[in-house]
């Protein structure tokens, strides 16, 4: 792949990378016939974002990496790769300095060297050349259908930002309650904390405040603000409108934006599964759900039922979701596959869990909150029998005094 960008496009690309960097740790680069796609998935696999840059965005674009030594049209390959976000972010880190000095930018994925080459031609004849190592991989896909969502509303990104200002910056999750003529936002309080001890904030947005408002299903959806803030930072800088599509509780939310035919972006965010009525199943399901996304982040409570797991089958803790995975989509072993097709969502209702009770050992059961978490951590201590391991018979330090 090789492409050439002018100064304004470089700035947009840099902002897009900043946005993706706030969401995930690895950037997937996929050149296609229609342009360049940058994708990322977050660590807990609960947010997927993709930026599509179309052909008019570039001064010059070729998605094929040519074999420069022996020109062989049959061997043309399209390289898809991924890199750690840190490395590419360091190239595009300072948007201010990019704005001041860069005139054009050349990005190349040559066939023969396993490097992503970025070259900035700056003012005063300065050329900055970056070689970044990448890893080859299969693509990360999330299949979703924009027209399949029940509710859709859109407005300027500034409007969303202003609304979110009413929430303190440490609020992690916000619940959006959709009604026929309004959207009601409130901060979500974790089940474990006593809600009467926390400050609760609510904001009501009337239908007329939106540019476009079409709610078919009255429902409540809760998802994390972190990714939304990253999206808004990008959208506000470029003064774009943001579309939001929601289905129902537990189903993922889709945010999208686009600029004419230059670029577009989609962000699929997982939402919290609603707690079911029956307490027995609900505690297990929410617990199971919670542990789908064993995350390195401290906020664990982000999971969605339909977003199936991007985890390999070997991981016994996600037994429940592995089952789902096999029923849904054939997965290439290395690639995380991320489906949220609406027709398959019904497969992902939490009902299977009670049936699996018999199969589940204490060990395999995912760690639920509070006391049960302690039980999980200390599970070996609580087990009835100890694992008998053969100990080596070799004595390294014999008794200095003989046995009496």
């Amino acid at each position: 792949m090789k492409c050439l960008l002018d100064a304004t496009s470089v700035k947009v690309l840099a902002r897009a990378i900043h946005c993706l960097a706030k969401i995930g740790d690895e950037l997937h680069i996929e050149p296609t016939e229609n342009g360049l796609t940058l994708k990322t998935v977050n660590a807990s696999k609960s947010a997927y974002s993709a930026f599509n840059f179309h052909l008019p965005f570039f001064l010059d674009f070729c998605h094929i990496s040519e074999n420069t030594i022996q020109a062989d049209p049959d061997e043309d390959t399209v390289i898809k790769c991924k890199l750690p976000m840190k490395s590419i972010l360091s190239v595009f880190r300072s948007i201010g300095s990019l704005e001041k000095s860069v005139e054009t930018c050349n990005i190349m994925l040559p066939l023969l060297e396993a490097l992503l080459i970025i070259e900035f031609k700056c003012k005063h004849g300065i050329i900055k050349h970056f070689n970044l190592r990448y890893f080859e991989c299969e693509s990360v896909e999330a299949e979703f259908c924009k027209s399949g969502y029940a509710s859709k509303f859109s407005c300027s990104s500034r409007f969303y930002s202003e609304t979110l200002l009413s929430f303190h910056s440490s609020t992690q999750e916000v619940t959006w309650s959709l009604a026929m003529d309004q959207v009601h936002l409130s901060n979500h309080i974790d089940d474990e904390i006593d809600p009467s001890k926390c400050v609760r904030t609510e904001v009501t947005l009337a239908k007329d405040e939106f540019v476009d408002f079409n709610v078919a299903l009255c429902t409540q959806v809760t998802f994390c603000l972190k990714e939304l803030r990253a999206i808004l930072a990008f959208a506000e800088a470029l003064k774009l409108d943001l579309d939001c599509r929601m289905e129902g509780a537990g189903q993922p939310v889709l945010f999208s934006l686009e600029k004419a035919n230059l670029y577009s972006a989609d962000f699929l965010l997982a939402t919290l599964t609603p707690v079911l009525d029956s307490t027995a199943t609900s505690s297990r399901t929410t617990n199971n759900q919670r542990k789908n996304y064993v995350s390195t982040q401290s906020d664990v409570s982000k999971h969605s039922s339909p977003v199936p797991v991007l985890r390999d089958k070997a991981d016994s803790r996600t037994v429940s979701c592995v089952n789902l995975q096999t029923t849904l989509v054939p997965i290439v072993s290395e690639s995380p596959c991320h489906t949220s097709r609406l027709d398959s969502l019904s497969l992902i209702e939490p009902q299977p869990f009670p049936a699996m009770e018999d199969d589940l050992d204490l060990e395999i059961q995912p760690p639920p909150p509070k006391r049960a978490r302690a039980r999980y951590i200390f599970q070996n201590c609580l087990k009835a029998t100890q694992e008998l391991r053969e100990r080596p018979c070799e004595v390294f330090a014999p008794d200095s005094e003989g046995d009496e």
Partner: protein
Amino acid sequence: MKFRGKMIDPNCIKQFIGILGCMTKLGKSCILRITTTDLYFIVRESQTISASPLIWCALDEGHFFSEFGMEGLSTVDNEIYLEFVAENVARTLSALKVSGTAKSVKIKLTKKLSSPCLTFEIDLPSGTNHSRLVVHDIPVNLVPRRLWNDYLEPEAMDPDISVHMPQLRLMKSIVERMKNLANMATIHVTSEGLLTLTVETEAVSVTSHFDNLHVEKKSIGKEEEASVTIELKRLSNFLGHEQLNPQKVVCDVLQSKLMHLNFLSDSYTLQYFLPGINDQ
């Protein structure tokens, strides 16, 4: 018990939020006392070295609220004492600051989720003639009647010397720098309008002199000067709120015992009682 107040003047709203912000930064928990005529914020910090300092702020409800109604504990004790965790309010304040453009702010005592809260309902204008309602519920505790005496209005003290403070911003920057040198400083005031702030360490001693200060009052028969040693950290915490723009700030010193700062403004008074530290 009931309480309901509504503010519609943007300046009043801003000032109220500013005072609330100031209170939350000065201690872990804050008491709000509501009477038929005034609102009081009381912060009594836990003891550190000496007797606890006390912050007492009185707001005239007539100035701030366009609508005000309250019903206290009983007809005899027609007051409400609430305690809230400063951190909760501080976190909401950044969101409340948005209400600088609010059309109105209503504060009510409500009971949600079976525990009492102070609810702030903010009416924000948005876009085209619409208004957006933002509601914050801050959990509070009702202070039982037997503890009300802990929060009595402090007695008007009879200071040895009382002067107008020099420009607060100036004092603040000096105190900030002195804070790095030592924990305590001595304030020395003379009846000629000279205030000095001295910090001493093993290696160095730094004194700032402010003169030509207006002397408010000096006790006849007592010394012509007074000094007290105080904790700098607390002083700098307090001076940080110079953005409240009081009309004047009076500093009263009671020899070795107390430094009293009084922020005076037509709509509210804010008093800070800093006890002196006796390490001699």
